[in-house]
Each structure stands twice: as C-alpha cells, then as structure tokens.
C-alpha cells in the first residue's frame, strides 16, 4: 500500500515538472494558435546550457536559472522575430497556420541534430550538490531535485497567472489572444506581443531545463519525449490554460508512475497515447479549454 502512495506522490512530483514544460507550450499555443513543435528542442538547448554551466562552474544547479532563463528568452524572441513572424504574416488569412507547424518541426530537426553533431549522442549526467539526495518520510523516499522542481513549478504557475491577470503586459497578451485585430486597433503592437510570448514560452523551458538537469540525463534527443508529453498535456488541460497545463502534467505523471506499478514501463507509454486519443474523442476542448478553440 505504502508503495502505491509513494509512486502516487512521485507521479505528482514528476508530473508537475512535465507541467512545467507544457506551460510554455500552452502559452504560445493559446496566444498565437501555433503549435511549437520545436518546444522539446528548446528544452534540450536549455538543458545543455544548464549542464555546461553547472559542470564548468561547479555551482548549485539552481544558480543556473538566472543565466539559462534569460538566454532562452532571447533565443525564443529571436526565433519568433526572424523565422516564425515572416511565415506567420504570409499565412495571415489562413485560419490554421499549418506551415508554422512544419517550420517549427524544421527548427526541431536542425537543433537536435546540431546538438548531436557538436556534443555526440552519449548520455551526460550533471553531478551537482543535490543529485541523488533523498527525503525520507514514513518509509517513503523522494528525490530532493524533484521536490524542488515541483515547488518551482508551483511558483512559476502562480507568477504567470498573476502576470496574465494583473500586469499591463499580461492584459495586452490576453487581449491579443482574444482578438488580434481589435487589440491592434487599441494600440497593442501585435508582433511585439508575439515576440514576448514566444520568448516567455521558451523561458519556461529554461526553468524546466534547470530543474531537470540535477536528476535527468542530457542528450541531443532528450526533448522528443518531453515534446510529445507536452502536446498531450496541453490538449488534456485545454489549450491556453496554465492551470490546465500544470494539472494535465500531474495527471500524466500519475498515470505514468502508477501505471508502472502494474505493467511494463513501455506499456505505460501506450496507455498515455490511448488516454490522449480518448480525451480528444470525448472532450477535445480539454479540462479547462473553451469550446470554440478546437
């Protein structure tokens, strides 16, 4: 019994980190109606940055946050400004910007294989001061990096919620996501909002990267599983919904770890896909999504 409670709690911890990767995706998805297929690759870029920062300087991994997060913000900002924006403009009248999906897939291929070319395919582990540290309560064991990660997810979720709800910029973002044209008429610079939203979405990946590095392998295709999980979470939670992304992440994490108690780990992967398809068939708007969005 205690084993199930332990894996349930571990699922919640890991799931909140999945939620963290999905938050950035849902933000971009919600505002720009664009699926960023390069999301996992951006996470990978962040993980390599955090890995090298930590191994070269030997500092506490969470000190990489103020370095990696702004770096990825700039990265995302530039990616939107120079690659996605021109394509987006060419497809302005098309309701479903499919070309953007494909271009972000192209960016994914370039980034992942560039990493393969530069750093090789081997798995790297960052030896940090928190790696492998356990917390023991009632005979249950939890990794400290996961606990800290879940805490950071919660803080980031609250901050983003505050940012979108109350800050001036956040209001502009919401206005743009509701109605591009009307927002432009109100004097909101649509492209600037898009650049910032894309930057923020990538910055969320930066946070996730720093949280993952103390306990997760770093390798060139590390983004792919996170990418697909993030898509599933975003649809599960309802697109554009930040609480939905975090809750969706937790649901996914729980299915994964609890499922692993009853069946082989590869089968849980299958379970997640089937669960995702079921959600799509039954309620495509997700848990917190609006009906007109799908």
């Amino acid at each position, binding site marked *: 019994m205690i084993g199930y409670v332990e894996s349930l709690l571990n699922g919640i911890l890991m799931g909140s980190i999945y939620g963290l990767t999905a938050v950035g995706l849902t933000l971009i998805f919600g505002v720009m109606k664009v*699926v960023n297929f390069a999301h996992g690759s951006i996470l990978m870029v962040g993980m390599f940055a955090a890995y090298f920062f930590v191994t070269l300087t030997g500092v506490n991994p969470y000190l990489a946050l103020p370095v990696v997060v702004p770096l990825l913000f700039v990265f995302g900002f530039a990616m939107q400004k120079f*690659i996605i924006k021109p394509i987006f403009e060419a497809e302005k009248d098309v309701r479903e910007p*499919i070309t953007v999906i494909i271009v972000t897939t192209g960016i994914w291929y370039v980034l992942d294989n560039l990493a*393969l070319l530069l750093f090789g*395919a081997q798995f790297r582990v960052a030896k940090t001061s928190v790696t492998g540290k356990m917390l023991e309560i009632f005979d249950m064991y939890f990794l400290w990096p996961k606990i800290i990660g879940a805490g950071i997810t919660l803080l980031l979720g609250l901050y983003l919620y505050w940012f979108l709800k109350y800050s001036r910029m956040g209001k502009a973002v919401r206005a743009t996501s509701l109605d591009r044209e009307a927002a432009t008429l109100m004097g909101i610079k649509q492209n600037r909002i898009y650049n910032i939203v894309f930057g923020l979405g990538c910055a969320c990946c930066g946070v996730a990267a720093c949280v993952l590095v103390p306990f997760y392998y770093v390798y060139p295709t590390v983004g792919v599983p996170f990418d697909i999980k993030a898509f599933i979470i975003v649809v599960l939670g309802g697109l554009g919904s930040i609480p939905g992304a975090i809750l969706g992440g937790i649901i996914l994490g729980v299915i994964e770890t609890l499922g692993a108690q009853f069946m082989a780990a590869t089968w849980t992967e*299958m379970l997640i896909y089937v669960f995702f*398809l079921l959600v799509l068939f039954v309620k495509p708007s997700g848990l917190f999504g609006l009906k007109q969005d*799908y």
Partner: protein
Amino acid sequence: MKLLTDQSPFHKIATLLIIAGLLALPLVVSNPSVMQIFILIIFYAYLTSCWNFVGGFAGVLPLGHSAFVGIGAYTSTTLYLTYGVSPWFGMLVGGVLAAIMGILIGLPTLKLRGAYFALATIAFGEATRVLVENVEKIGPFEIRGPKGLLINLAGNSLADFQFSSKAPYYYIILFMLLLVLLLTFVMMNSKVGYYLAAGGEEPEAAEALGIKVSKYKLIAMAISCFLTALGGTFYAQLVLYFYPKSILGLDLSYEIAFIALIGGRGTILGPILGALLLRPVGELTRIYLSDSLPGLHLIIFGLVLIIVMRYQPKGLVEPVSRWFNRLARRVDQGDNNRKQEEDCHGVADS
C-alpha cells in the same frame, strides 16, 4: 498542372519523354545501389502522393502515416510467413485493413482543427509503434516485437514478390506511382475533389452549401490509407527485413509530410519534386557523412524545409511549373503563330 490533357504540344512531348526516360532507366543504370536510390525516390514520391489525398486535398496535416505503412508491411509479411500467402494477395488484405483503420481513426479526428488533428495522428502513430514493439504474437502471427521480421529468401519468384535484380522492383513501384498519380488526377477533376478542396479551404461555407465535408474527408482518408499500406508491402519485399522503428517511427511520418510540403501539397507534381530534392540529399549524406558527421543530413533537411517554407510557402511546384510553362510558351510560340494564321484563313474563307 494538367500534364497529358494540356493543349500545348511541348507539355505532351516533355511528359512522354520523361516517362520514356523513366522506363528506360534500368537499361542504362546497372549499379544496384544507384538503382536502389532511384527506387527509394520513387517509393517516397509514391508514399507522399498517397499522403496527399488527406494532407493535400482534405486540408489537414496527418503526421502518423507510418502506421499505415506498417500495417501494410506487417499484414502481408505475417500472412506470408505464417500461411505462405503470396504478398500480392497480402498486400490487398493489408490495404483493406489500413483503410478500415483509417476510417476508424478519421471518424472522430477529421472533425478536429489542424493542430489537433496533427497531434491525434502523431499519438495514433506512436501508439501503433509502441504496441508492435511490445507484442511478440498476435493470434497465430509472430510479429517478434522490437526484433522485427525477416522474410526468408525465395530467390527470383514473381509469386513471392521477390526478384534477384533491382529492375522488377523499379518497374513495380514506378507503375504504382503512375497509378496513384492517375488516381490523383481523376480525383482532382471529380466532384469528390472539388468538394474536398471546398471543405479544406472553407469548411463552414462548404457545409452551408450542403456538402458533407467529413464524409468526403473520410473517403479521401480511406483511399490514402489503402494505398499507403500497399507501399508498406512493397517496402517489406524490397528490403526483406524491417523492425518497428524503421517503418513505424515518427521519422517516416514526418519525412512524408516534409516531402509533400517542400514539393507543394495538393498538387500532382509536388510529391515527385519533393522526393527528388530531399531523398538524394538524405541518401547521399547518410552514406558518405553519417560516420564522420552524424545528423548532418537531418540538419540539411531541416534547413531546406525552413528556407523553402520561408520563400515558397506553397512549395517548389510553383516556381518550377512557372519556369516550365514559360519554356513551353517559348517553344510553342512558332507553332501557335502558324496555328493562328491557319485559324485566320479559316475565318476568312468562310
């Protein structure tokens, strides 16, 4: 681009020349590995043309088509290995299975918007891969999980769909490609094609006009999946060994979509242009550079994709056909002048 029906004689002659050249190719090329590259180019053009029925005409982005390639390959091969059924027959069984699967998957998902449909098809493709990787046996059929299937050598036998030289494979896939292109052409100029185009661009308006968009999308999906599965059997018989990652992976699904988008989706020539550009790049860099510079061919893939989408969002078919038409006009000029003169005389006479 209307190839054979186009009035211009230059178009007709050029098309016939290209087809004649393609038919004569195995007589000129004797090197099997060069032949293999040509076969793969045509094979990918074939798969992409099949994808085009859904991805091009129905206006959605399917990213799980490798699942149908896999259904085709696994069905015909397991039937062959277990009961000795000829792959020619197994091919059709696989096609029907894939079409049924496509309808089952399309029924709920084709109503979804672009991004959702793309994600649903990715999930379907990946679920299929994971399923096949984890199962050793389905009923009497051995599928051997991640180890894949090996087709025993039968030598040179038409009934067993195995040939000792590359030329028969080349002619089979060329014939399949021409057939699917003909079907594409017929479909594009049929009621179904017009309905699909209307439904892809403006679903609400089409529905308002009384077109059952989802019904026609389902028809397109069924045709596409059926033909894709035939391609799966061909591939299995060509390489004689395959495993889940090689024919069921996301990579193959993406590559098909990439080729279509770079060439120009929703056109007849698009898949061929895309395959002609991307496949040789993929093959050559994989053969010559994959040891020293791993991943380089995929970087080139991605870059080509970004650049083409940036400057030719409708694909390469646009500039190529513009160039071709200009050439045709110039060649036909003299011809047309003569014809016009004749017409004038005709009018004057009457």
